[in-house]
């Protein structure tokens, strides 16, 4: 009787937790949509500049969100672009080559890096920019420094997901290619890596989300409220999460606060687009590596 009661209790608790999670996500997104969607308009994004002029960089967008959107997209692409090759290589090393104490040493440092708060990484990026400035006058906190700092922030996710994806491949699959005369590198390149792509893709998606939403790292390393579209890797830039933070603490009227919600919705949409792009890329890669003749 008692066991039956415990079973019912655990089952309903599990159900309730699931329900709570779903409704929390639903309430947050719903709230954002109700507040944000009415503010969405071309003028929110482009101000009084025409969209065509904005995209071709013929005229600066002064009052819209367009520069912040461009800044966020560039930042995510740069940071994830830099972190992915390093993260995958490190993950492959840990899963396939690392042995003994050296492996546990690297694993420990990966965990430490994962545990560093983002504001500390931001501070490190800031100090890096300052000390580099002594040698190269052109370097201030900028897009490149932010992207570098963010790359370090997401590196542990990429390393760990790659490592776990490769390590969870069953032994039969692992032996198939060597039995056919594959070298270790061929086995990794043709069998183990393609099979790990779904796991690796989820790591990349996590990294994209983390880069897109982070505020504390970029606040210290180069984001500003009004910089326009960055002209080079070494210029300051705008970003959506910083805009949301800034506008919600400094708004002057109800309309400005409303644009914060609009920016949040746009940030979500950009994230969704980047996720879809990563997913599409994964499918294309797998198809190419495994099925096409």
């Amino acid at each position, binding site marked *: 009787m008692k066991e039956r009661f415990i079973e019912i209790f655990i089952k309903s608790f599990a159900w309730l937790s699931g329900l709570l999670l779903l409704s929390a996500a639903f309430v947050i997104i719903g709230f954002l949509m109700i507040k944000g969607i009415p503010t969405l308009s071309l003028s929110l994004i482009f101000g009084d500049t025409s969209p065509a002029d904005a995209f071709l960089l013929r005229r600066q967008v002064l009052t819209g969100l367009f520069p912040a959107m461009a800044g966020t997209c560039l930042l995510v692409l740069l940071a994830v672009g830099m972190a992915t090759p390093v993260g995958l290589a490190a993950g492959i090393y840990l899963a396939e080559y690392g042995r003994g104490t050296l492996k546990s040493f690297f694993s420990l440092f990966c965990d430490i890096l994962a545990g560093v708060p983002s504001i500390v990484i931001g501070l490190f990026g800031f100090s890096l920019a300052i000390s580099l400035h002594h040698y190269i006058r052109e370097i201030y906190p900028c897009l490149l420094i932010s992207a570098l700092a963010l790359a370090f922030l997401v590196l542990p996710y990429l390393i760990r997901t790659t490592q776990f994806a490769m390590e969870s491949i069953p032994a*039969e*699959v*692992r*032996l*198939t*290619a*060597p*039995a*056919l*005369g*594959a*070298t270790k590198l*061929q086995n990794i390149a*043709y*069998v183990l890596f*393609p*099979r790990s792509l779904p796991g690796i893709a989820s790591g990349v998606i996590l990294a994209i989300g983390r880069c897109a939403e982070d505020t504390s790292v970029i606040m210290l390393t180069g984001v500003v409220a009004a910089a326009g579209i960055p002209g080079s890797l070494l210029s300051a830039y705008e970003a959506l999460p910083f805009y949301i933070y800034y506008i919600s603490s400094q708004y002057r009227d109800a309309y400005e606060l409303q644009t914060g919600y609009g920016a949040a919705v746009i940030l979500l949409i950009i994230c969704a687009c980047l996720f879809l792009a990563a997913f599409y890329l994964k499918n294309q890669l797998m198809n190419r590596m*495994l*099925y*096409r*003749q």
Partner: protein
Amino acid sequence: MTENKSNEMKIKTVNLSFYYNHLRVLKDISVEFPERSISAIVGPSGQGKSTFLMIFNRLWETIPDARMEGEAFIRLNNKWVNIYDRSISLPELRRSAGMVFQTPNPLPMSIFKNISFPLKLSGVTEMQSVDEKVESALKQAFLWDEVKDRLTDDARSLSGGQQQRLCIARALTLDPEILLLDEPTSFLDARSGQIIEDLLLSLKESCTILLISHYMDQIRRIADQVMELSGDTSNNS
């Protein structure tokens, strides 16, 4: 072992012992296998039959804490070669000694990519010769007619018997001199098993086959000689 005077020897071991940690699974085995014949390896489970097969393509070397003593030779190009010599290239050895496992293990790729995979590994890229090799390997494995119209399908969509023939075809693409088969029919129904037995009989024209089997009637039907591994001793009959 019933001597088969017409054929020369192809594979031999000298005082071969094998250990996992401190557990000895093979003790002091010295045997020879004649070429172009089917040699069955029998014995109760856990007596090192699969380990014995892996001696000849050195696949056991990926297993941690495994250790071998003694020597193993294969006659390649009419010369006895110690396959544990330092000059031996592991990929080349494994290309000349193909292996088929108990559970069919197609890679998660198309049928065509599975069969052409060993060619890709050995650097054959010319499309026409790849196509020809794939076709001839599939024909050799009695599979061509069943899959020729769906070569781009996922290999895992085939039936169990077809998957096992696919694995045999994959091992055949590099024209191996030796085929190592670890209970290839144990997960198949009688009809699929029958096809594979016929296939092995036709392959023995060109290959030396070592076959682990549990089925005495299968051994009677296709094996030219039988080697028994039991406990610490091996008996040839």
